């Protein structure tokens, strides 16, 4: 057993259990969540994987035989549709990440240099969208971007265009929705990392002759790299595997990796194909995450303390 400090006498077993979980060293405090993860994520995923790597015979709704096979994987990897779909997903996710960074960084910077009220307003505006579901926010874009939506009626009324632009159900609608929905996930880690640093660093830079732009370039930006890494990893993962936004704003015929898995499982009822697609989705996602982590690590060598 772990080193458990038992309170002196009188405590009930419940209190002792809580105490053991809280004071236990190593893995004990994590046990409940490990159990949940095993039951809810790892085991189902293992079952799904086993479907992707076997030939299955089904009779009267029950699996009667299951033999190991790589055919699903090889079919997928030689199918140009897969390549096109995954490339599109990758492009979309990388573009989204890029724009989230471009739009999010100035907001985080404003948070850093702004006064008390600026900070509050930014926090409220960043967090408030997270309080509504992604589906609701996506539907809001239907209203804004639609043929008779806010954007088109404004442009029409000022005679900038003659007829409504077709924004909905295009790549652009998906990208706009993705950037807006994932923006907070970029801004929050940036703010967390940037406001962790001593404001005197900025004063020191100014005192040593740096202009505001030079301070941003030489001090604030390099120190925010860990935040950029975290934000980029989160936004990439979420937008690479997103399902709701392309499904709603892409008009049902915008196929990305997640919508492909959905169609294979729900409409084609081909669980093996869906399983293989999920696997490819997960592995490629991990590869990009590792690349992001490597780049971030390379740029933040200074954080690795005392190993001169």
């Amino acid at each position, binding site marked *: 057993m772990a080193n458990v400090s038992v309170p002196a006498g009188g405590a009930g077993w419940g209190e002792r259990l809580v105490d053991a979980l809280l004071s236990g060293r190593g893995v004990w405090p994590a046990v409940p969540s490990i159990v949940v993860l095993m039951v809810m994520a790892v085991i189902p995923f293992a079952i799904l994987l086993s479907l992707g790597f076997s030939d299955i015979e089904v009779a009267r709704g029950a699996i009667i035989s299951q033999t190991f096979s790589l055919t699903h994987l090889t079919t997928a990897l030689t199918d140009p549709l897969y390549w096109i779909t995954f490339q599109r997903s990758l492009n979309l996710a990388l573009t989204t990440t890029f724009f989230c960074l471009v739009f999010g960084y100035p907001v985080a910077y404003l948070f850093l240099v702004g006064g008390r009220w600026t900070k509050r307003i930014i926090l409220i505006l960043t967090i408030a969208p997270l309080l509504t579901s992604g589906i609701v926010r996506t539907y809001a874009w239907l209203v804004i971007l639609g043929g008779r939506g806010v954007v088109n009626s404004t442009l029409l009324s000022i005679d900038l265009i003659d007829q409504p632009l077709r924004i909905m159900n295009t790549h652009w609608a998906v990208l706009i929705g993705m950037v807006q929905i994932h923006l907070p996930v970029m801004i929050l880690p940036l703010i967390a990392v940037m406001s962790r640093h001593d404001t*005197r660093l900025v*004063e020191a830079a100014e*005192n040593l*002759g*740096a202009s505001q732009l030079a301070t941003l370039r030489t001090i604030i930006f390099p120190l925010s790299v860990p935040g950029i890494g975290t934000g980029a990893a989160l936004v990439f993962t979420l937008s690479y595997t997103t399902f709701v936004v392309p499904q709603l704003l892409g008009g049902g015929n915008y196929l990305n990796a997640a919508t492909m898995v959905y169609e294979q499982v729900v409409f084609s009822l081909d669980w093996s194909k869906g399983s293989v697609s999920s696997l490819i989705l997960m592995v490629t996602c991990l590869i990009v995450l590792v690349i992001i982590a490597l780049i971030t690590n390379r740029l933040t060598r*200074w*954080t690795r*303390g*005392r190993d*001169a």
Partner: protein
Amino acid sequence: MLDTAGPMIDSNDPAPVLSIGAVSKKFDSLTVLENCSLDVAEGEIVTLLGPSGCGKTTLLRCIAGFWDADSGGIRIDGRDMGAVPVNRRPVGVVFQSYALFPHMTVVQNVGYALRMLRMPRSAVAERVSTALETVSLTGLEDRYPSQLSGGQQQRVAIARVLVMEPRVLLLDEPFNALDAKLRGSMQVELRQLIKKLGLTSIFVTHDQEEALTMSDRIAVMRAGRIEQAAPPEEIFDRPATAYVADFIGMSNFFSGEAQAGAVLLPDGQSQSTELQGPVKVMIRPHNIRLVDAQDQDWRGTIAFHRPVGPLIEYHVDVAGDQIKVLSMRQQQSQIYADGACVGLQVIDPASCSIYPGAH
């Protein structure tokens, strides 16, 4: 007359390098600085000393340009700094806990100011290595700040401002981040370094020991005002106000009455004064001698005693008041035990300070 371009060592009144003229500053309705004036001569180290909240850091930040004064002006070499932005002032700041750039090595930190001036690489390297030699930091060039000890970090912070050859060096409690043992030796070392380089400096602290060690002059601050600015000995021996007397060193205060140009001290001796009416008399503990009780009317019992290095500190209970007395251990014929009945005598009445004050 001396050549104005040359050193003005013999001049009676050399132009001050830094001149603070009637600076006031308010935050909302709170007055943080009130009419502060101070001139600092070439190569002089002046300490702003006071408790937290007395405005010493605010004054430092106004000199550096981080904050603007509401009224009054700051001049360096006669040039008004009012319109000069932070990054153009000839001022170097050593921050509390140093504010070293954590993502830069020692060399990169020290060379920062020169890179901002777009100085060629070779010149930067040369001046950085000179600065590192000056603060004896060679061999640690490629370390990051997190890999340095507190003392080393302080040297990097000093080298980082030295390279830009500031006219005025500002030090904001630079010893706070060091452990007590290191502090004493670093203080002496830093003073010698600044003196060797001839840097005009303002040093902010709340620690009087530090102030007495580091300064040519001490400016004692209280609630946004400078109470007294004078050399350390003068501050200690002839404090201008009761507040300064109380803040610096140990002190005993007595109420008295000034009549016909003199005040009667508690032991019956008298000290001349220009004041009239109720006064406060301050007598330093080392200006009181313990004598046999039967020889004195001013007497009490020892409430507490302890050795302080070569001295011995007594607290003598006289009619409910505790009076502090410091004596050399060797010169005292005997060491009085707690509870002993003793007489007290002022050694030098002329060294007692007298301030106006109500009872």
